[in-house]
């Protein structure tokens, strides 16, 4: 019971933090939409072309905008010592990583997911694809959160080259994008593709607490 309370109040804390900085999340979403505008204008008025490459644009922008918020993933808690306090409160580093991953998913990725229908209208994507989009984005963005946790914990002590973290996420998200764009283009093989995505999710989810936890411990040890 005690443990459950700790988890609940971890999220209470994350909620308070994110709500007080709600403009950060909104800025992310604005970035998302402005980029869509730029894509539309740079492609030109051909609605047909836009609807063909629309899904690809959505994925690229989701990836880019979620890497934008990476800096915040652990950095703040690392610098002001909250990571140590959470650990001293009985949460192992691996478990902190899992909690943080879900927190990133809830407070950063879910707003994106909610804005997908509007983006679909802008990009002229057919309505009947919305279900497939939501399914693939739901799993895909959770994978992105896990990858984000791994790469940002790796780069906690990296003061020189922060872009490296984004590159790490992007290179590992290549298969995710292949499969989730496949879902939308080949609806007949929806089941097997969603299973593959789910498999990838399981793998990164299993690796995440170990890799992130170890990196967090390392960074705190040598800070």
């Amino acid at each position, binding site marked *: 019971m005690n443990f459950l309370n700790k988890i609940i109040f971890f999220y209470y804390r994350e909620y308070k933090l994110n709500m007080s900085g709600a403009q950060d999340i909104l800025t992310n979403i604005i970035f998302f939409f402005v980029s869509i505008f730029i894509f539309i204008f740079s492609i030109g008025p051909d609605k047909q072309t836009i609807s063909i490459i629309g899904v690809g644009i959505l994925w690229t922008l989701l990836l880019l905008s979620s890497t934008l918020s990476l800096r915040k993933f652990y950095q703040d808690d690392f610098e002001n010592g909250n990571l140590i306090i959470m650990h001293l409160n009985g949460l192992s580093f*691996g478990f902190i990583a899992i909690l943080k991953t879900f927190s990133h998913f809830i407070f950063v990725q879910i707003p994106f997911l909610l804005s997908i229908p509007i983006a679909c209208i802008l990009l002229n994507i057919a309505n009947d694809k919305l279900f497939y989009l939501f399914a693939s984005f739901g799993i895909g963005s959770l994978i992105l959160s896990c990858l984000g946790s791994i790469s940002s914990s790796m780069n906690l002590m990296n003061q020189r080259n922060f872009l490296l973290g984004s590159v790490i996420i992007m290179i590992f998200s290549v298969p995710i994008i*292949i*499969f989730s764009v*496949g879902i939308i283009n*080949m609806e*007949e*093989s929806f089941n*097997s*593709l969603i*299973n*593959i995505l*789910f*498999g*990838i*999710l*399981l*793998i990164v*989810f*299993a*690796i995440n*607490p*170990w890799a992130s936890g170890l990196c967090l411990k390392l960074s705190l040890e040598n800070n």
Partner: protein
Amino acid sequence: MSLRFQRLLFILLTLVIILSAVLLILYNTRENVSYFYTPSEIDKSEIIINKIIRIGGFVENNSFNKISSSSFKFKITDEKTSILVTFKGILPDLFREGQGAVIEGAFVDKNIFNATNVFAKHDENYMPASIKEDLKDTGYWNKKYK
């Protein structure tokens, strides 16, 4: 529960998850991550006109026709079905009858595939040109279609 036991439990759990995930992925990727479709796969599914796809197979023997100096007509086969292909452009060196090829393009008709790109696919067999002649003479040379 001691910390060590907990740790062992988590490691086991992780391994089980990863193993099941790998099995899940391997079980499902068989057909889906293809660079190209084979003609019989195309035959089974519905043909969508003007959708760009890739088809891979072998150039059927005695099907190659030169319409003009840079426009060609041939059939791609996987020994079960074949597809008529038209192509305008430069063919790669390795392109010849009986040789593997991957073509990129779209169906313009139910039966005619208009290729925009033709790639030759070579197989994993390497042998000297002289030996191949000998093998052909004895009839031992027997090329397997994929």
